[in-house]
């Protein structure tokens, strides 16, 4: 193990940084945006919404991300209807396919978390809204969802780290993000330890930055005392 290669590895590995960040941030944001309607659907009163959402999350959470990635990138390209559609310019690109696959995957897991948190909001909150005449729409936007997302901040912070790690799979469909670049450089230098350890340190640094950011957010918006007070005197 030579320090020389460590030093040479740094700029190389940094070349992959931009794509890693693009994939991570885009997939994360897209995944969170998709998770909300999906989570609401999982909790919906109507089976017409509940069942498709449940099937979707069941299938996605039951299979590896790699398979989903290949289905979107290699599989969709096989279908003539897709190749001729207006979406082809997007679905042809490995970068977009990677982002879509990771986002869809993240959304499925996040939706379950959102649905669970929605269920845990005390029924009294909805009842207070009803008694005040507040519409269903505003009940969600002003009362239920703010509470849910404040409670879920730690989960969301965790999710972005998972998405960061998932971004490494993009190297399997030719994208030269950090892992892809590291692997290619290793093939040229036969110095896997130096290169992969440097890449690893970079991932840890990015993860640390995200975690720090979310800790700050948690401090500001944090978990509000969502629990209603327990009866201090029995009725």
């Amino acid at each position, binding site marked *: 193990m030579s320090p020389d290669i460590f030093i040479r590895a740094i700029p190389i590995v940094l070349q992959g940084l931009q794509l890693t960040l693009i994939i991570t941030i885009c997939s994360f944001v897209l995944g969170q945006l998709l998770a909300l309607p999906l989570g609401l659907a999982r909790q919906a009163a109507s089976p017409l919404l509940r069942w498709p959402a449940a099937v979707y999350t069941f*299938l996605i959470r039951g*299979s590896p991300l790699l398979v989903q990635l290949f*289905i979107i990138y290699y*599989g969709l390209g096989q279908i003539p209807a897709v190749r001729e559609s207006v979406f082809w310019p997007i679905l042809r690109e490995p970068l977009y396919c990677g982002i879509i696959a990771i986002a869809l995957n993240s959304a499925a897991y996040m939706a379950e978390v959102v649905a669970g948190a929605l269920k845990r909001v005390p029924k009294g909150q909805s009842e207070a809204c009803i008694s005040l005449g507040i519409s269903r729409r505003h009940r969600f936007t002003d009362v239920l969802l703010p509470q849910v997302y404040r409670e879920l901040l730690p989960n969301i912070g965790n999710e972005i780290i998972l998405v960061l*790690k998932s971004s490494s799979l993009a190297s399997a469909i030719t994208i030269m993000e950090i892992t892809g670049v590291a692997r290619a450089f290793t093939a040229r230098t036969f110095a*896997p330890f130096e290169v*992969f350890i440097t890449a*690893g340190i970079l991932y840890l640094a990015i993860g640390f930055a995200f975690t720090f950011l979310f800790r700050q957010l948690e401090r500001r918006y944090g978990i509000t005392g969502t629990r209603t007070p327990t009866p201090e005197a029995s009725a």
Partner: protein
Amino acid sequence: MSVILTYLPHLLEGLLVTLQVAAGSFVIGLLIAILAVFGWNFGPRPLRWFISGYVTIVRGLPELLIIFLVFYGGTVLLSGIFGAYVEVNALTAGICALSVVAGAYLTEILRGALLTVPQGQWEAATSLGMSRMTTFRDVVLPQMLAYAVPGLGNQWLVILKESALVSIIGLEELMRKGVVAAGATHSPMTFYLTVGALYVAITAVSTLIIGAADRRAARGR
């Protein structure tokens, strides 16, 4: 479709390898975790830091990176030792890498489960004259494992899906078999959907078994 049926035996062979990788990694990871929790509880401070460091670092790294590190790194090591190009066996590399990863997550799961065991259990055992070691082994550990079932079960599902990554270094498990079949027949969608369905099937079956195990374990909680 008949092309699926033609390749089905190959896919099922791959499925077997997948199960081997997953089971091997899970068991070794669990052993690592039990040792780590043991060391955390009874060991000196530096050992705690080491275990903490191991868990934090491994959980912050992409699994694929760890697999590459073990595979390519192992190859370089072995080649250095033997003086000629010796490639690490993909199965070994896969199990090694995934065990290291599983060990980190399982350590956290077991530590959480350990904290759930009521303090009173330790106190009762001490008052009966049992040493800390004996208490841990005979009283606390079994209870801890009972609390840990849901977490352990979940980790099993994670490892099952993670095993697909080992296909990237050429292991002939389910995913790789699917890739090969897709390439040979030029029908990626067909085979990746089939492979996906097989994964869903084994995770579904696993989930049922874990549920049953959890209900059994709950009797003693």
